[in-house]
Protein backbone atom coordinates (compact mmCIF):
# COMPACT_ATOMS: atom_id res chain seq x y z
CA UNK A 1 0.00 0.00 0.00
CA UNK A 2 1.37 3.35 -0.96
CA UNK A 3 0.39 5.58 1.86
CA UNK A 4 1.05 8.90 0.22
CA UNK A 5 -1.62 8.64 -2.44
CA UNK A 6 -4.09 7.15 -0.06
CA UNK A 7 -3.61 9.86 2.52
CA UNK A 8 -3.61 12.67 0.00
CA UNK A 9 -6.80 11.53 -1.61
CA UNK A 10 -8.37 10.62 1.73
CA UNK A 11 -7.71 14.11 2.95
CA UNK A 12 -9.41 15.71 -0.05
CA UNK A 13 -12.26 13.20 0.00
CA UNK A 14 -12.97 13.84 3.65
CA UNK A 15 -13.01 17.59 3.01
CA UNK A 16 -15.43 17.13 0.14
CA UNK A 17 -17.68 14.79 2.11
CA UNK A 18 -17.82 17.25 5.02
CA UNK A 19 -18.66 20.11 2.70
CA UNK A 20 -21.41 18.08 1.03
CA UNK A 21 -22.82 17.05 4.40
CA UNK A 22 -22.81 20.67 5.58
CA UNK A 23 -24.88 21.69 2.60
CA UNK A 24 -27.02 18.57 2.38
CA UNK A 25 -29.52 19.73 4.99
CA UNK A 26 -30.13 22.98 3.17
CA UNK A 27 -30.51 21.32 -0.23
CA UNK A 28 -32.26 18.19 0.99
CA UNK A 29 -29.66 15.99 -0.67
CA UNK A 30 -28.29 12.59 0.25
CA UNK A 31 -24.57 12.04 0.78
CA UNK A 32 -22.73 8.72 0.86
CA UNK A 33 -19.02 8.03 0.94
CA UNK A 34 -16.68 5.09 0.84
CA UNK A 35 -12.91 4.86 1.35
CA UNK A 36 -11.33 2.00 -0.58
CA UNK A 37 -8.61 0.29 1.39
CA UNK A 38 -5.88 -1.82 -0.14
CA UNK A 39 -5.71 -3.99 2.99
CA UNK A 40 -9.39 -4.92 2.57
CA UNK A 41 -9.36 -5.02 -1.23
CA UNK A 42 -10.65 -8.59 -1.52
CA UNK A 43 -13.77 -7.79 0.47
CA UNK A 44 -14.32 -4.46 -1.25
CA UNK A 45 -16.23 -5.75 -4.24
CA UNK A 46 -18.57 -3.45 -6.20
CA UNK A 47 -21.46 -5.18 -4.42
CA UNK A 48 -20.02 -4.34 -1.01
CA UNK A 49 -18.92 -0.81 -1.91
CA UNK A 50 -22.23 0.12 -3.52
CA UNK A 51 -24.08 -1.71 -0.74
CA UNK A 52 -22.40 0.59 1.79
CA UNK A 53 -23.28 3.59 -0.38
CA UNK A 54 -26.88 2.42 -0.65
CA UNK A 55 -27.13 1.90 3.09
CA UNK A 56 -26.07 5.47 3.75
CA UNK A 57 -28.45 6.93 1.22
CA UNK A 58 -31.36 4.84 2.50
CA UNK A 59 -30.40 5.77 6.07
CA UNK A 60 -30.81 9.40 5.09
CA UNK A 61 -34.36 8.99 3.82
CA UNK A 62 -37.29 9.77 6.08
CA UNK A 63 -39.04 6.64 4.85
CA UNK A 64 -37.58 3.48 3.38
CA UNK A 65 -38.93 3.09 -0.18
CA UNK A 66 -41.56 0.38 -0.61
CA UNK A 67 -39.45 -1.35 -3.28
CA UNK A 68 -36.66 -1.86 -0.76
CA UNK A 69 -39.02 -3.06 1.97
CA UNK A 70 -40.50 -5.54 -0.49
CA UNK A 71 -37.06 -6.78 -1.56
CA UNK A 72 -36.17 -7.24 2.11
CA UNK A 73 -39.35 -9.28 2.75
CA UNK A 74 -38.61 -11.45 -0.30
CA UNK A 75 -35.06 -12.10 0.85
CA UNK A 76 -36.19 -13.03 4.32
CA UNK A 77 -38.60 -15.56 2.85
CA UNK A 78 -35.92 -17.14 0.63
CA UNK A 79 -34.62 -20.44 1.98
CA UNK A 80 -31.17 -19.96 3.43
CA UNK A 81 -31.35 -16.21 2.77
CA UNK A 82 -29.79 -15.58 -0.63
CA UNK A 83 -27.06 -12.93 -0.55
CA UNK A 84 -27.57 -9.62 -2.24
CA UNK A 85 -26.19 -9.45 -5.77
CA UNK A 86 -24.75 -6.43 -7.55
CA UNK A 87 -27.86 -6.21 -9.76
CA UNK A 88 -30.08 -6.03 -6.65
CA UNK A 89 -27.98 -3.30 -5.09
CA UNK A 90 -27.91 -1.34 -8.35
CA UNK A 91 -31.65 -1.57 -8.79
CA UNK A 92 -32.26 -0.29 -5.24
CA UNK A 93 -29.61 2.40 -5.66
CA UNK A 94 -31.35 3.64 -8.78
CA UNK A 95 -34.63 3.77 -6.88
CA UNK A 96 -33.07 5.84 -4.11
CA UNK A 97 -31.19 8.35 -6.28
CA UNK A 98 -34.33 8.91 -8.35
CA UNK A 99 -36.13 10.08 -5.20
CA UNK A 100 -33.60 12.60 -3.94
CA UNK A 101 -30.53 14.48 -5.24
CA UNK A 102 -27.61 12.31 -4.22
CA UNK A 103 -23.84 12.61 -3.89
CA UNK A 104 -21.75 9.44 -4.04
CA UNK A 105 -18.08 9.78 -3.05
CA UNK A 106 -15.60 6.95 -3.52
CA UNK A 107 -12.04 7.50 -2.45
CA UNK A 108 -8.93 5.65 -3.61
CA UNK A 109 -9.89 3.80 -6.80
CA UNK A 110 -6.25 2.69 -7.04
CA UNK A 111 -6.75 0.60 -3.90
CA UNK A 112 -9.43 -1.52 -5.57
CA UNK A 113 -8.80 -4.82 -7.32
CA UNK A 114 -8.71 -3.98 -11.06
CA UNK A 115 -11.74 -6.11 -12.00
CA UNK A 116 -13.70 -4.66 -9.11
CA UNK A 117 -12.80 -1.14 -10.14
CA UNK A 118 -13.97 -1.72 -13.69
CA UNK A 119 -17.28 -3.17 -12.50
CA UNK A 120 -17.68 -0.33 -10.04
CA UNK A 121 -17.20 2.33 -12.73
CA UNK A 122 -19.56 0.56 -15.12
CA UNK A 123 -22.17 0.34 -12.34
CA UNK A 124 -21.82 4.02 -11.50
CA UNK A 125 -22.27 4.80 -15.18
CA UNK A 126 -25.55 2.89 -15.15
CA UNK A 127 -26.73 4.94 -12.18
CA UNK A 128 -25.77 8.16 -13.97
CA UNK A 129 -27.51 7.12 -17.17
CA UNK A 130 -30.80 6.68 -15.32
CA UNK A 131 -30.36 9.64 -12.97
CA UNK A 132 -27.99 12.17 -14.56
CA UNK A 133 -28.52 14.58 -11.65
CA UNK A 134 -26.60 12.24 -9.36
CA UNK A 135 -23.15 13.59 -8.48
CA UNK A 136 -20.23 11.18 -8.28
CA UNK A 137 -16.92 12.15 -6.68
CA UNK A 138 -13.92 9.87 -7.24
CA UNK A 139 -10.23 9.96 -6.41
CA UNK A 140 -7.34 7.94 -7.81
CA UNK A 141 -4.03 8.07 -9.59
CA UNK A 142 -3.40 10.01 -12.82
CA UNK A 143 -3.09 6.85 -14.92
CA UNK A 144 -6.69 5.97 -14.08
CA UNK A 145 -8.04 9.10 -15.65
CA UNK A 146 -8.46 7.61 -19.13
CA UNK A 147 -10.26 4.57 -17.74
CA UNK A 148 -12.53 6.69 -15.56
CA UNK A 149 -13.42 8.94 -18.50
CA UNK A 150 -14.08 5.97 -20.78
CA UNK A 151 -16.18 3.96 -18.31
CA UNK A 152 -18.22 6.97 -17.32
CA UNK A 153 -19.04 7.97 -20.89
CA UNK A 154 -16.95 11.12 -20.76
CA UNK A 155 -19.10 12.84 -18.14
CA UNK A 156 -16.01 13.63 -16.08
CA UNK A 157 -14.38 16.79 -14.77
CA UNK A 158 -10.93 16.49 -13.26
CA UNK A 159 -8.79 18.27 -10.69
CA UNK A 160 -5.11 17.57 -10.17
CA UNK A 161 -4.36 17.21 -6.48
CA UNK A 162 -1.00 18.65 -5.71
CA UNK A 163 0.08 20.60 -2.64
CA UNK A 164 -0.02 24.34 -3.13
CA UNK A 165 1.96 26.89 -1.18
CA UNK A 166 -0.88 27.80 1.25
CA UNK A 167 -1.39 24.07 1.92
CA UNK A 168 2.25 23.60 2.76
CA UNK A 169 2.33 26.66 5.00
CA UNK A 170 -0.88 25.62 6.80
CA UNK A 171 0.51 22.16 7.23
CA UNK A 172 3.80 23.45 8.60
CA UNK A 173 1.92 25.64 11.09
CA UNK A 174 -0.07 22.58 12.10
CA UNK A 175 3.02 20.45 12.63
CA UNK A 176 4.97 23.20 14.36
CA UNK A 177 2.04 23.57 16.73
CA UNK A 178 2.45 19.91 17.63
CA UNK A 179 6.19 20.21 18.23
CA UNK A 180 7.18 18.17 21.26
CA UNK A 181 10.28 20.32 21.88
CA UNK A 182 9.07 23.91 21.71
CA UNK A 183 12.17 25.11 23.59
CA UNK A 184 14.31 24.28 20.57
CA UNK A 185 12.24 26.57 18.37
CA UNK A 186 12.66 30.31 18.08
CA UNK A 187 11.00 32.85 15.82
CA UNK A 188 13.95 32.97 13.39
CA UNK A 189 14.02 29.22 12.95
CA UNK A 190 10.23 29.10 12.52
CA UNK A 191 10.33 31.89 9.91
CA UNK A 192 13.13 30.05 8.13
CA UNK A 193 11.15 26.81 8.05
CA UNK A 194 8.03 28.57 6.79
CA UNK A 195 10.05 30.25 4.02
CA UNK A 196 12.36 27.51 2.81
CA UNK A 197 10.29 24.33 2.99
CA UNK A 198 7.51 25.64 0.72
CA UNK A 199 10.18 26.78 -1.77
CA UNK A 200 11.93 23.42 -1.79
CA UNK A 201 8.68 21.48 -2.01
CA UNK A 202 7.43 23.61 -4.90
CA UNK A 203 10.67 22.97 -6.77
CA UNK A 204 10.30 19.29 -6.06
CA UNK A 205 6.65 19.14 -7.07
CA UNK A 206 7.50 21.07 -10.23
CA UNK A 207 10.17 18.54 -11.08
CA UNK A 208 7.89 15.54 -10.62
CA UNK A 209 4.75 16.76 -12.40
Amino acid at each position, binding site marked *: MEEGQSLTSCHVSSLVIDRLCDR*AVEHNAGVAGFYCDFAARKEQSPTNILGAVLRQLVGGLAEIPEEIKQAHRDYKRAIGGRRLQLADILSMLQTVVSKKPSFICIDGLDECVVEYRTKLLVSLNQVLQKSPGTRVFLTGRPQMQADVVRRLSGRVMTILI*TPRRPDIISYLHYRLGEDGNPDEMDSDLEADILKKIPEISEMWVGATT
Partner: protein
Amino acid sequence: MLLTNFFQWRLIGQSPGIIRLHKDPAFVKLSRILSTHHLLSTSFRTAKMSRNLFHDNLNSLAGNCCSFNNTATINNAYPRPDILTWLSPLEPRLRHEDIRERRARNVGEWVLQAEEFKNWYAGSGRSESDTGVLFCYGDPGVGKTFIR
Protein backbone atom coordinates in the same frame (compact mmCIF):
# COMPACT_ATOMS: atom_id res chain seq x y z
CA MET B 1 -25.66 8.44 48.63
CA LEU B 2 -25.47 11.03 51.40
CA LEU B 3 -27.14 13.52 49.14
CA THR B 4 -29.91 11.11 48.22
CA ASN B 5 -30.55 10.23 51.85
CA PHE B 6 -30.52 13.87 52.81
CA PHE B 7 -33.16 14.77 50.28
CA GLN B 8 -35.25 11.81 51.30
CA TRP B 9 -35.08 13.18 54.85
CA ARG B 10 -36.11 16.57 53.62
CA LEU B 11 -39.08 15.09 51.83
CA ILE B 12 -40.30 13.24 54.90
CA GLY B 13 -38.96 15.88 57.25
CA GLN B 14 -42.10 16.09 59.37
CA SER B 15 -40.87 13.85 62.17
CA PRO B 16 -39.87 15.67 65.40
CA GLY B 17 -36.29 14.38 65.26
CA ILE B 18 -35.75 15.81 61.80
CA ILE B 19 -37.30 19.15 62.74
CA ARG B 20 -34.91 19.38 65.70
CA LEU B 21 -32.02 18.62 63.39
CA HIS B 22 -33.08 21.48 61.09
CA LYS B 23 -32.40 23.97 63.87
CA ASP B 24 -28.80 22.84 64.37
CA PRO B 25 -26.47 25.52 62.84
CA ALA B 26 -24.17 22.89 61.35
CA PHE B 27 -27.13 21.20 59.74
CA VAL B 28 -28.41 24.51 58.38
CA LYS B 29 -25.01 25.18 56.84
CA LEU B 30 -24.82 21.68 55.37
CA SER B 31 -28.35 22.10 54.12
CA ARG B 32 -27.41 25.32 52.33
CA ILE B 33 -24.32 23.78 50.76
CA LEU B 34 -26.12 20.67 49.64
CA SER B 35 -29.06 22.64 48.29
CA THR B 36 -26.70 24.70 46.20
CA HIS B 37 -24.95 21.56 45.09
CA HIS B 38 -28.26 19.94 44.24
CA LEU B 39 -29.38 23.00 42.32
CA LEU B 40 -26.11 23.09 40.45
CA SER B 41 -26.17 19.42 39.64
CA THR B 42 -29.82 19.68 38.58
CA SER B 43 -28.98 22.62 36.35
CA PHE B 44 -26.04 20.71 34.98
CA ARG B 45 -28.18 17.67 34.31
CA THR B 46 -30.86 19.81 32.67
CA ALA B 47 -28.24 21.52 30.54
CA LYS B 48 -26.76 18.15 29.62
CA MET B 49 -30.19 16.78 28.74
CA SER B 50 -30.95 19.85 26.63
CA ARG B 51 -27.64 19.43 24.90
CA ASN B 52 -28.33 15.75 24.20
CA LEU B 53 -31.82 16.63 23.01
CA PHE B 54 -30.32 19.29 20.76
CA HIS B 55 -27.85 16.76 19.38
CA ASP B 56 -30.62 14.22 18.85
CA ASN B 57 -32.68 16.80 17.00
CA LEU B 58 -29.69 17.85 14.98
CA ASN B 59 -28.98 14.24 14.14
CA SER B 60 -32.58 13.73 13.09
CA LEU B 61 -32.36 16.76 10.86
CA ALA B 62 -29.01 15.75 9.47
CA GLY B 63 -30.25 12.19 9.22
CA ASN B 64 -32.69 13.28 6.60
CA CYS B 65 -29.83 14.21 4.38
CA CYS B 66 -26.46 12.93 5.38
CA SER B 67 -26.10 9.57 6.97
CA PHE B 68 -22.37 10.14 7.44
CA ASN B 69 -23.17 12.19 10.51
CA ASN B 70 -26.09 10.43 12.00
CA THR B 71 -27.57 7.41 13.54
CA ALA B 72 -30.97 7.23 11.89
CA THR B 73 -33.63 8.45 14.28
CA ILE B 74 -36.71 8.66 12.13
CA ASN B 75 -40.08 7.20 12.97
CA ASN B 76 -40.72 4.24 10.83
CA ALA B 77 -42.78 1.22 11.69
CA TYR B 78 -40.71 -1.02 9.45
CA PRO B 79 -37.57 -2.54 11.08
CA ARG B 80 -35.17 0.09 9.79
CA PRO B 81 -31.94 -1.17 11.39
CA ASP B 82 -32.62 -4.66 10.00
CA ILE B 83 -32.92 -3.34 6.48
CA LEU B 84 -29.86 -1.11 6.75
CA THR B 85 -27.71 -3.96 8.05
CA TRP B 86 -29.12 -6.22 5.37
CA LEU B 87 -28.04 -3.70 2.71
CA SER B 88 -24.52 -3.55 4.13
CA PRO B 89 -22.80 -4.33 7.40
CA LEU B 90 -19.98 -1.87 6.61
CA GLU B 91 -19.65 1.48 8.36
CA PRO B 92 -17.44 3.81 6.31
CA ARG B 93 -18.49 6.65 8.63
CA LEU B 94 -15.93 5.39 11.16
CA ARG B 95 -13.07 5.68 8.67
CA HIS B 96 -14.30 9.13 7.72
CA GLU B 97 -14.28 10.27 11.34
CA ASP B 98 -10.77 8.93 11.79
CA ILE B 99 -9.47 10.78 8.72
CA ARG B 100 -11.25 13.97 9.71
CA GLU B 101 -9.65 13.92 13.14
CA ARG B 102 -6.15 13.64 11.67
CA ARG B 103 -6.71 16.31 9.03
CA ALA B 104 -4.52 19.40 9.20
CA ARG B 105 -6.66 22.52 9.17
CA ASN B 106 -6.86 24.65 6.00
CA VAL B 107 -4.92 22.16 3.91
CA GLY B 108 -6.53 21.35 0.56
CA GLU B 109 -9.39 23.84 1.02
CA TRP B 110 -8.64 25.24 -2.43
CA VAL B 111 -10.28 22.15 -3.94
CA LEU B 112 -13.64 23.32 -2.56
CA GLN B 113 -13.09 26.74 -4.15
CA ALA B 114 -12.08 25.35 -7.54
CA GLU B 115 -14.41 26.16 -10.45
CA GLU B 116 -14.53 22.46 -11.36
CA PHE B 117 -15.83 21.61 -7.91
CA LYS B 118 -18.41 24.39 -7.95
CA ASN B 119 -19.67 23.46 -11.41
CA TRP B 120 -19.86 19.81 -10.51
CA TYR B 121 -21.71 20.58 -7.29
CA ALA B 122 -24.21 22.90 -8.95
CA GLY B 123 -24.89 20.67 -11.95
CA SER B 124 -28.30 19.08 -12.25
CA GLY B 125 -27.65 16.72 -15.15
CA ARG B 126 -30.12 18.61 -17.34
CA SER B 127 -27.68 20.31 -19.71
CA GLU B 128 -25.49 18.65 -22.31
CA SER B 129 -22.34 20.15 -20.86
CA ASP B 130 -23.08 18.92 -17.35
CA THR B 131 -20.65 16.40 -15.95
CA GLY B 132 -21.89 14.20 -13.18
CA VAL B 133 -18.44 12.97 -12.18
CA LEU B 134 -15.58 14.82 -10.52
CA PHE B 135 -12.33 12.90 -10.57
CA CYS B 136 -9.53 14.17 -8.33
CA TYR B 137 -6.22 12.60 -9.16
CA GLY B 138 -2.73 12.83 -7.76
CA ASP B 139 0.57 11.09 -8.04
CA PRO B 140 1.52 8.99 -5.04
CA GLY B 141 4.87 10.73 -4.80
CA VAL B 142 3.49 14.24 -4.80
CA GLY B 143 2.55 15.86 -1.58
CA LYS B 144 2.96 12.75 0.50
CA THR B 145 5.23 14.36 3.01
CA PHE B 146 3.35 17.61 3.12
CA ILE B 147 -0.28 16.65 3.22
CA ARG B 148 0.12 13.81 5.68
